[in-house]
């Protein structure tokens, strides 16, 4: 295995330059405000925050599912508004909580989605599908021809990860991918994914509200509160930051601490 450890100061592949995103409804609402950070190649950045803190919005600004209302997001050297959205997205894997597998496709067809859009030939696609199924711990002979409704929640998420990796994109975006799983399966997938992420050396932006998950996977954690960044630290530094929202999250790790105080 060519274990790729990214140097800490490598060229950033994603950069948020004073990014604001808001809705211009009858009551204009700012979702994220003046966001500045960059993600270095090979880094696993975890966006941590409560529901509604704006973390999913940041993720969608990266693959241009949303366009900033202020500032710009630079991905692989160009602002997202300059990128052809289709080309930009084909180079970015995307995994979401409900997997979003196509119910009318087999597992193999789901994984082969981007290769088929990129018109790979059948032999190359097949071998890639088998390789990925093995990578995410599913036996190709058993699973390739199944349909999503014949899979468990954990298996669906594994296929979701395989689909996102299909065309070997340099960037992977993950929006609470393990959030809907039972605790045992979740822990299993977190462990496996943590190992996989280290092996693949991709730039990963991972959204979660679970500090335990953040500490396990992150090379860096950004904590969001009501659309603003309030902490940006390594997993080692993070628990020691003196901020009420950080304390709220660290307290969530030990649910009984409050009762004893």
């Amino acid at each position: 295995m060519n274990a790729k450890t990214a140097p800490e100061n490598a060229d950033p592949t994603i950069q948020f330059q004073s990014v604001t995103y808001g809705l211009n409804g009858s009551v204009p609402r700012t979702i994220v405000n003046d966001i500045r950070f960059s993600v270095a190649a090979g880094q696993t950045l975890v966006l941590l925050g409560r529901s509604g803190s704006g973390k999913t919005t940041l993720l969608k600004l990266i693959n241009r599912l949303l366009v900033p209302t202020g500032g710009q997001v630079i991905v692989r050297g160009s602002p997202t508004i300059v990128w052809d959205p289709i080309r930009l997205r084909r180079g970015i894997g995307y995994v979401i909580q409900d997997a979003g597998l196509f119910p009318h496709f087999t597992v193999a067809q789901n994984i082969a989605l981007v290769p088929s859009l990129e018109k790979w030939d059948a032999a190359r696609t097949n071998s890639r599908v088998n390789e990925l199924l093995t990578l995410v711990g599913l036996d190709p002979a058993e699973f390739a021809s199944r349909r999503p409704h014949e899979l468990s929640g954990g298996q669906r998420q594994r296929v979701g990860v395989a689909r996102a990796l299909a065309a070997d994109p340099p960037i992977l975006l993950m929006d609470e991918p393990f959030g809907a799983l039972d605790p045992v399966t979740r822990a299993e997938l977190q462990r496996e994914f943590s190992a996989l992420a280290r092996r693949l050396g991709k730039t990963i932006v991972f959204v979660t509200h679970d500090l335990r998950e953040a500490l396990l996977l992150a090379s860096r954690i950004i904590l969001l509160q009501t659309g603003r960044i309030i902490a940006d630290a390594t997993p080692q530094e993070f628990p020691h930051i003196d901020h009420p929202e950080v304390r709220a999250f660290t307290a969530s790790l030990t649910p009984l601490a409050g009762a004893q105080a």
Partner: protein
Amino acid sequence: MTPWTFFVDHRAEILEATANHLTLVIIAMTFAIAIGVPLGMLIVHRPALRNLALGLASIFQTIPSLALFGFLIPIPFIGGIGRRTAIVALVLYALLPILRNTYVGLTGIDPAVLEAAEAMGMTQSQILWRVRLPLARAVILAGIRTATIITIGVATIAAAIGAGGLGTFIFRGVAMVSDAVILAGAIPAALLAIAADLLLGWLERRLKIA
């Protein structure tokens, strides 16, 4: 005269009327599908056109069928007495269930699936043809099934404006106060509707994705 003897004596005539009736329905449904399905696809991303199309189709559906046939007679080109007018009216009637089901089927898809499709770099037309349409086909077919059954029923009234079909027996039977003659039109029409319902229902189940 019992219904049975009337049936036996006029079997050739009844069969011909049934064939006419079926032709009327098939022609009308072909046009209704050819208009309704593409229009349903078109209004997915066009809210203004959507309200107009669904609104108009709903209005046609509320007009009593006999009145709709009557309204069309004086209209040039599409109106007049005969089959052409009847087909136009039947198409207008069949349009709403097809249009509405096409739209509902295409838009009632799991948002996670559509989000994934877009995020994977599929174009809107790829999403329409490869994701929305395959997932909507059972719902669209359900609309076609409803429309077909409505059309088979309404087509009996088309005989009032000289379009032929099984309604001819029904109107003649009413005028003659003869149950046997009414049944000679009503029974085959009912059988046609049941057969269409079973056939299209079977097809719909086959297209459904578990």
